[in-house]
Every structure is written in C-alpha cells, then in structure tokens.
C-alpha cells in the first residue's frame, strides 16, 4: 500500500470517527439507540451545499451554522427519546428510525433527490505532493481537524467537570439526580452535542463523502459498526475501530470492491467473537 493509500485510509477512518463519536457519546452516556444519526450527517452536507461551502465565506458560514443546526436536531431527538426512556431501547430505536425515514424524505424533497456536489473552498482546493504522488490538500486539513475534535472530545469527557457530570448520569441517573444534577438537561445537552458532531462531520467531510440518497444509511451503518467494534460509549475504542474500518474499506475498495462490505462483516464477526466488549477494552473473550 502506498503512502497516499495510507493517508487516504486515515482520512476515511477519521470521517467515520467524527460521525461515530457522536453516536457513541449518545449511546454510552444516555443509553439511547438513535437510528437518526446518519440524517444529521446528511443535514451537514445539505448545509455545505446550501451555504455554498465551496467559497471561503460560505465554508465558514456552514461551519458556524452546523452548531445551531446540530443543537436544534439534537433537541428534537432528545425530546422524542426522553419520554421513552422507561420503555426500553426498542421504542427509542423505532422512534428514531421513524424520524430518520421522515428526514430522508425531507432531504429528498429539498434537494430533488440527487447528489449534492461539494468542493473544498480556495485555497484548499489544491493538491500537495506525498511521496511523489499528488494528494488533495483538503483531506490533510480534514485529518488535522478530526484529530483536534478527537482530542477536545477526549479531554472534555475525561478531564472536565462537564465530562464527569455526563459520566455520573450514565452510571447512575438516580444518584446523580439526588446530588442536584438534572438528568433531563444532561440528556438534552449530550444528545445535542452528539448531533452537532455528526452535522459538523457533514460540513467538514462533504467534499470527501458527499450527501445523497443512501448516505445517511451508509453513515449510520458504519457508525454502528464502529460503536460495536470499539465498545458502546468507548471513545478510545471508537477511534481505533474507525481507523480499522477506514483501512479495511480503503484496502477493500482498491483490491476487491465486490467483497468490500463482506470484509467489514468478517472483521465484525471476528472482533465480536474474540473480544465482545470491543477493541478499546482490555478484556478478551
């Protein structure tokens, strides 16, 4: 595999990581199975298209708009799933799947059902030389941005009071409530934060994985795969799993496109059979 191939695998894996980190945050902290997560990515690509992110001003506007959009969409998801918290994950899964179907139809109506073209804004729409081969500069910037997001997320969850509060609610909501933490507020904030990550991923990665019919499903299944491989709620495991998924996808597409999904499936079965608690855990089966 060439140097460009390796960098591309990392870029691909980090696209998946930014989306999946939001899902694993929601799953791990709230125990909510949201199947509308791919729709948030789609919303990000729509923002990039609508605000003309192929210009510097439009790109910054889309990045800025990603946060309120993510908060708004996350609030809808939180409002739908909070009343269902005592009714099991199935009810939450059905409700959010319903939401994602409605969102997909709304997206198709808003865009005419086609693919949304996305190019990086100047001066990022150029190529750089890696080991003698030309490579899109924007993807390198995306790698840096995704690593920064991963770092901020890890520091927030493991080193700040906000992260401590979220972990307290995840471990024991009743106990957290008894010391003055409002679980409903934490539920809304974490849902919003997880959705913001997916929308932000949509804006940032639109030139890499453009929005279109089926993109929401593709992002959802890849995110779910990463959450299962990495362990639900495990950010470190999700990071490793995303890089593995990116590598398998990239290598698979280059070497044997017909069996690329089968390779991911084989990785899933192997990891779950050997290490059911995920790649991030130290526990072996």
């Amino acid at each position: 595999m060439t140097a460009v191939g390796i960098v591309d695998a990392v870029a691909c894996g980090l696209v998946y990581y930014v989306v999946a980190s939001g899902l694993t945050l929601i799953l791990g902290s709230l125990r909510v199975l949201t199947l509308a997560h791919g729709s948030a990515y789609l919303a990000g690509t729509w923002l990039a298209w609508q605000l003309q992110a192929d210009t510097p001003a439009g790109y910054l506007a889309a990045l800025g708009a990603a946060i309120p959009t993510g908060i708004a969409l996350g609030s809808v998801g939180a409002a739908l799933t909070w009343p269902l918290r005592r009714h099991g994950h199935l009810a939450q899964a059905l409700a959010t799947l319903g939401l994602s179907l409605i969102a997909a139809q709304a997206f198709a109506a808003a865009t005419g059902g086609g693919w949304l073209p996305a190019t990086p804004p100047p001066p990022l729409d150029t190529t750089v030389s890696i080991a003698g081969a030309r490579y899109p500069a924007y993807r390198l910037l995306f790698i840096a941005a995704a690593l920064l997001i991963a770092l901020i997320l890890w520091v927030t969850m493991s080193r700040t009071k906000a992260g401590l509060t979220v972990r307290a609610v995840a471990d024991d909501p009743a106990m957290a409530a008894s010391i003055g933490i409002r679980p409903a507020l934490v539920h809304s904030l974490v849902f919003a934060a997880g959705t913001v990550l997916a929308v932000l991923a949509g804006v940032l990665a639109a030139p890499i994985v453009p929005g279109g019919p089926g993109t929401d499903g593709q992002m959802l299944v890849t995110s779910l795969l990463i959450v299962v491989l990495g362990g639900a709620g495990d950010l470190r495991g999700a990071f490793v799993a995303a890089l593995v998924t990116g590598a398998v996808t990239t290598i698979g597409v280059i070497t044997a496109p017909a069996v690329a999904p089968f390779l991911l499936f084989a990785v899933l079965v192997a990891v779950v059979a050997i290490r059911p608690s995920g790649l991030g855990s130290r526990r072996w089966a």
Partner: protein
Amino acid sequence: MTRRLAVTGVAAVAVALPFVADTYTVTVGARILALGLLAVAVHLLSTRTLQASLGHGAYFGVGGYTTALLAQSGHDSAPLQLAAAITAATAAAAVIAVALARLRGLTYVLASLAVGMLAAAYAASAHTVTGGTDGIAAAAPKLWPFGISLAPVGTRYLWLATVVLGICGLLAWHARSPFAAAAIAIGDIDQGMNAFGYPVARTVWRGHLHSAAVAGAAGALWVHATGYLNPTDLGLTTSALALAAATIGHHHGPIVVITATAALVCARDVAASHLPPAGQGPLWLGLLLLTAAFLPLAGRRTTPTPAEVRP
C-alpha cells in the same frame, strides 16, 4: 377461549382471502404473509432469549437469493426452493450467531443491525451473484410432486398461507419443548442458568438457528410472492417493520404478530396511495414507526418487559 376463537377467525379469514377478494388484495396479502413470517422469526428470538434483532433482513436475504438463484438455474420446485432457503439461512446463522449469540442488550441490537445492513450492502455490490441494485427475478415455481404451477395469484397465495400456518403450528408445538423453556429461562436469568450448568451459549446459538430458519423461509416466500428480490427488500426498513410487528404482538402468538404486520403494511400502503404527498411510502412508514414507539405511552403502561433490551 375468546382469544383462541379470534385467532382462529383471523387464520380462517386469511386462508379464505383468495376466494373472496380481488387480485390486488390477494397479491398484497401474499406479501404480508411473507413479511409476517419474518416478523414471527424476530418475535421468536425476542420472546425467548430477549435478543431484539434489527438484522434479520440478512437471513431473509439469504433465503430469498437462494430461492431466486435456484429458480434461475431451472430448479422450479417450490418445496425444494423452500428447503434450500431454510438450509442456507440456517447455515449463515450458524456462522453469524457464533458472534451474535455472545451479545446481549443494546450491543446485540447494534451488532444485528450492522450485520443486516452489511448484508444489504453486499447484496447491492455483488452484481454477479445477486444482480446488484437491479435485483434478481425468479419465475413462478411449481408445486412438486403435483406439477401445479404457482403462477396464478390465488394458488400462490394458498401455498404461502399453507407454509406460514404450518410453520406457526410447528412453532406452537415447539414452544412446549424443554429447549424453549430453557431459552426463555436464559433470557430471564442468563447468569443464573449458567450457574445451574445449562449450556447457555449453545442454547442461544441454537435459538438463533431456529429464528434464522424461519427468516430464511420468509425470504423464500417473499420471492414466491413477488417473483423478484433486490437489496432494498432486505434493508433496514424491512427489519424495522418486522421488529415493530414483533414488538406490538410481543405478548401474543405468531398469528397476532402477522396481523400486526398486516396492519403496519396496510397503513403504510394506504397512506402512501391516498394521502398527500403522493408516493411517499417511507414518510408514512416513519410516522407509523413513531406512533408504534409511542403507543405504550398512550396506554400508560411500559413496553412489555421481555421485549426490553437491558443495558
């Protein structure tokens, strides 16, 4: 007694459908029977080992593609196709369940969903085997050894109804077996049964095989009903529809689960055909799933405990 009478009545109406309804209704009824059997497969797992699957589309697809490929290669015996579909789906589950049977709760839901969606993605990309997104067509089979063609809608429907009722009868008989009792006990007290010395992992694995066999049969019947299969048929919406029906009929038997499937499919299709905006089936299915999710709240009771996925 009233409940048994109602179930018998529903079964009788289902069998009588081709004699009293028009061709379109019978065609829709045949599709409902196939999807209903898929919901029964999901129900089988969710009521025994408490594993809620969103990935049974994979086994449905294995059964369906096996049937279609056999039909394309000239093997047009419907029972043979059905047997091959069941065998293939069970064989697929024998491998997949090595991993899935180890999981519980939310992780199981996630992993099963990933398996189902990967299977659909594989079906879409493997053009040489599955026809890719164009799908694969299958000629109407014959009923060996009588040589009766299943091309007429009514005959096809009766074949499907016979198979579905036969499998439901088998499941009702099997529900009284020691294996079923052990599987239910494992669903309730997994670690306790392990401590008692029950082979928990093997029992759950076998439970998966039973469920996958039923889902494989559903896939074969879907191809018999429609004469066609494409990757969308085994996608997330199919699995979700099956799980929704299994959840609605959780405290009841297979006939109620199939009735719930019929209600969901009819509501979706009727809404898509008669309510604006035109041709928006997924939109209405989305609203239906939202309604199904919030139904327990309307009744001020919790979702049936066994259907809950424990964290």
